[in-house]
């Protein structure tokens, strides 16, 4: 007579499809059967353990993104994006709201760190030649992500609504007015017929100068628009790291860790039925 499974084991088995005995198979399943962990490879190459090859700069950039997302959402509980409220809300977060200071400062410093780390990540990828085939496309995705990081930083700059914020965004958006063809002070403005009211600067500010409409626009871009695009591209970026042969290493190490296997295809498509 077979024993009926207990309710507990029925629940357990509905969540986890494998046991946790320390066997190679279970270790692999712990990673591959978990939606959050399957970002990681089930196995890594020996050179992947060499911290000093990549300094983990891409992963740290992502960590800073997560820090700013979490702290940013917390700040949104008190911050109102209007000229009348923005500055005082920011000050209240610092001095009146319990743990508000550390949230704001983690958001601020995390953002600074993310910008710096993304640049260093790019520098490392360049210096180690990791942009070369088969990773050219992922370099392109990374360049877009770098730009999005800059834009996230720029849009967040206005939100404290202090003197630095107002004049930095005044300067930045006036520079946008000098963009060729789409800025009213830029070269080719006559050709496209853009004016002060319908050029790139007006699009960013939503008015003649930095004011209420600009705060709202920057707020929406900062909290919704740019993070979603960045998150989608991060998914592509991380997925491509895996598809392009995993974390990059020195050429000899990469070749040695794939005995008898051709390097991942960089040109053309897989034949039908092939991987």
């Amino acid at each position, binding site marked *: 007579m077979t024993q009926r499974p207990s309710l507990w084991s029925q629940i357990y088995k509905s969540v986890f499809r494998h046991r946790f005995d320390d066997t190679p198979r279970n270790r692999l399943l712990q990673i591959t059967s978990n939606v959050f962990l399957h970002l990681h490879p089930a196995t890594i190459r020996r050179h992947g353990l060499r911290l000093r090859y990549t300094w983990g700069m891409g992963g740290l950039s992502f960590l800073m993104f997560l820090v700013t997302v979490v702290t940013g959402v917390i700040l949104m509980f008190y911050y109102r994006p209007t000229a009348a409220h923005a500055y005082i809300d920011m000050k209240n977060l610092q001095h009146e709201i319990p743990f508000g200071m550390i949230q704001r400062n983690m958001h601020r410093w995390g953002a600074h760190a993310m910008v710096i780390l993304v640049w260093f990540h790019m520098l490392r990828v360049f210096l180690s030649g990791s942009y070369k085939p088969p990773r050219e496309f992922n370099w392109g995705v990374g360049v877009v992500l770098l730009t999005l990081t800059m834009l996230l930083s720029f849009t967040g700059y206005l939100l404290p609504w202090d003197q630095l914020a107002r004049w930095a965004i005044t300067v930045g958006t006036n*520079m946008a007015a000098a963009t060729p063809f789409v800025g009213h002070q830029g070269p080719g403005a006559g050709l496209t017929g853009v004016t002060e009211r319908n050029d790139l600067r*007006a699009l960013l500010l939503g008015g003649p100068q930095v004011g209420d409409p600009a705060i709202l626009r920057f707020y929406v871009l900062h909290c919704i628009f740019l993070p979603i695009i960045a998150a989608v591209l991060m998914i592509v970026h991380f997925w491509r790291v895996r598809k392009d042969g995993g974390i990059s290493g020195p050429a000899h190490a990469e070749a040695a860790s794939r005995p008898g296997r051709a390097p991942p295809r960089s040109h053309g498509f897989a034949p039908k039925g092939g991987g």
Partner: protein
Amino acid sequence: MTDSQNRHHLWGRRDVLTAIGWTAVVGSLLAGTSAFGRLLFRRAPVEPPTLFRAGRLADYAPGTVSDRFLKTWRVFIVHEKDSLYAIFGKCTHLGCTPRWYSRESKFKCPCHGSGFDTAGVNFEGPAPKPLERARIWLDDTGELWVDVGQRYERDRWSQPGAALRLPKERA
């Protein structure tokens, strides 16, 4: 689709339906995107008022620069020997508001260090042009008016609204 069908019809049923489908998808995406682009420019842009009363001539001592309307209207009132004009406080480099330093007799922009003399002419820093002047005039009751919506670059400073010519005996 078989070869015989291909020979008789340039466009098969499946090709037509595929083309219609993709046209609908791409078309609606384009329509939505361009509608959103238009939505970001409102029909009636909200612009602040530009016209204000700036007091009387006697309020401005000769040879002085007043910043009493700087916070409210972004304007300096300059009273020179034989003229009175309103300088619009927007740096011609990237749009910050310069400050007046009476000891050095110059306007100085805090953002990138552009300097302008009492007439608003740039002489140091990255500013490429002199500061603009706002239209200024005197009404029948002797009250000064300034309209920051009407501005004069240097090539139009000789026009009537760019400055108030003062009779010599006043100065």
